[in-house]
């Protein structure tokens, strides 16, 4: 067996392989670590964290849809201080300090520019390797998606966060826009080190027997295999529009899906809701990517990034 290079570079940070977890679907890895080995992953991306604790939305918070799901968790989180003490501490303890350790990417959310900036500041001296800025959550009233749907606001917040951040920043884009490539370009110009996409597509489900919305928040974010074709298209569009790395996600359920995103232009990928269907799926994704590389004799996984144009 030949040496195969799986490692990829995101803004100067080397990931041992391109497979990450999608924010919000993996907690901080604590619960999954009982079932799998998180040291097999390129990076763990944690659940969105804000300055103060957030209660999130009422229940039901999730609903099943054809080949997908809706969620309206509403970014419940214990706030940055508890997060740093407990979650980052857990990750620090759990991750093997090898040559290329599993990286820690902290997903940040907020209601105002100031809140984002403050969270990012508090992360400056932590073990977080990269920060992912969620400006695309459709499930909270203030902040989040509002920043992600307006080029002007997106540019401003990206600049401010970039100035405040010690770590490289990844701007997480919303698919609920007319032109996502434009949004990626705006982020690049404002100094973002990478973009990740897609966050969920806003959707709704109605219980026709009870004549009411299934989710207590009325709308939720659609994710899963159902949205994969939209995500692949958007990754392709963004990769063609910017030079900074693009991280692809949306419905990934296998190594083959991960390869598809990379061929569309993604430097790395994240597995989201399919973690719920199969708690070992991220590990399996890495294994089947290696098998694909062997079958096609690919020496360096970076070769396939953007190979289909």
């Amino acid at each position, binding site marked *: 067996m030949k040496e195969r290079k799986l490692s990829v570079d995101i803004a100067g940070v080397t990931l041992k392989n391109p497979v990450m977890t999608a924010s*919000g*679907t*993996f*907690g901080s890895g*604590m*619960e*999954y670590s*009982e*079932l799998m080995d998180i040291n097999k992953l390129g990076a763990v991306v944690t*659940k969105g964290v804000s300055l103060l*604790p*957030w*209660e*999130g939305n009422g*229940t*039901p*918070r*999730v*609903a*099943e849809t*054809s*080949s*997908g*799901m809706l*969620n309206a*968790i509403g970014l*419940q*989180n*214990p*706030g940055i201080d*508890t997060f740093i003490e407990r979650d980052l501490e857990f990750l620090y303890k759990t991750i093997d300090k090898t040559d290329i350790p599993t990286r820690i990417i902290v997903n940040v959310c907020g209601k105002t520019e100031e809140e984002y900036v403050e969270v990012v500041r508090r992360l400056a001296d932590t073990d977080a390797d990269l920060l992912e800025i969620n400006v695309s959550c459709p499930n909270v009233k203030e902040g989040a998606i509002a920043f992600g749907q307006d080029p002007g606001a997106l540019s401003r917040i990206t600049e401010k966060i970039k100035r405040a951040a010690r770590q490289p920043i990844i701007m997480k884009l919303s698919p609920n826009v007319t032109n996502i490539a434009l949004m990626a370009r705006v982020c690049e110009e404002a100094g973002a080190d990478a973009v990740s996409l897609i966050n969920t597509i806003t959707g709704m489900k109605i219980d026709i027997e009870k004549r009411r919305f299934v989710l207590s928040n009325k709308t939720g974010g659609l994710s*899963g*295999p159902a949205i994969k074709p939209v995500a692949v298209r958007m990754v392709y569009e963004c990769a063609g529009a910017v030079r900074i790395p693009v991280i692809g996600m949306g419905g990934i359920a296998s190594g083959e899906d991960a390869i598809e995103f990379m061929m569309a232009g993604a430097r790395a990928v994240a597995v989201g*809701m*399919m*973690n*719920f*269907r*199969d*708690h*070992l799926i991220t590990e399996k994704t890495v294994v089947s990517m290696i098998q694909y590389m062997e079958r096609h004799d690919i020496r360096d996984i970076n070769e396939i990034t953007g190979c289909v144009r």
Partner: protein
Amino acid sequence: MKYSESARIIKQERLASDVFSLWIEGRIAEEARPGQFIAVYTKDPSRLLPRPISICETEGRRLRIVYRIAGEGTRQLSGLREGDTVEVTGPLGNGFPAEVKGPVLLIGGGIGIPPMLFTAKSRNDNIIVLGYRDPELFLLRELSEYGRVHIAVERPQECGREGSEYIEGLLKEGIIESFTKGNVLDAIRENGLSAGSAFACGPAPMLRAVKEYCGVNGIEAWVSLEERMACGIGACLACVCGSRDIDPHSGVRNKRICAEGPVFKAEEVII
């Protein structure tokens, strides 16, 4: 320890018109405690979320669930046969506490009855109260082996004349201690049941009534809650319930049913 496994089906059986009993084999059984549940996955790639189902009992490496057909997922599950496999993860959640003040009222309503069998088998100071909506009294005989059983039936009329003879028979046989037309609270009140503690599983209105009754009567109550789940293991925050105090894990007044629950001390949660 939790396991994700492809479990072999040992036996599938119909207990009532829409209630099935399923025995599966795997590692989960050996770790399971009463009140815990498993996540069951359908074979249909268009339905991706887990179906949480309580563990009804275990025997060595064998585990039993009893479920009602509530939608397409459980309908598909009911079509599986001996020798087929089913993807499951478990055991999940905390389960009922072992050390409580006895005797214990085990209160099961409808499809909340199955976990009471596992619980009843683990204790010997049970007073069992079962609420059925109609006279299809699934699991009744099995439960009656582990305590005195009181039953409440919402719509006993559906059994007709033969049905009421059937209930007479159960009373005579000593399978049940009492019969009440109504719900479990009616049965508890009618029989003036008292206990040190109470464990309850069933629909939310029943749990609310149990909580109130126990509060008034100084019975320590634990309730098993339900909510839509996604990860089943505490990572996604889909399945929360409101909590009286700030929860140490969440940092807010929310507890995860799949992790801190499904069994909670009644006074600590908002039902």
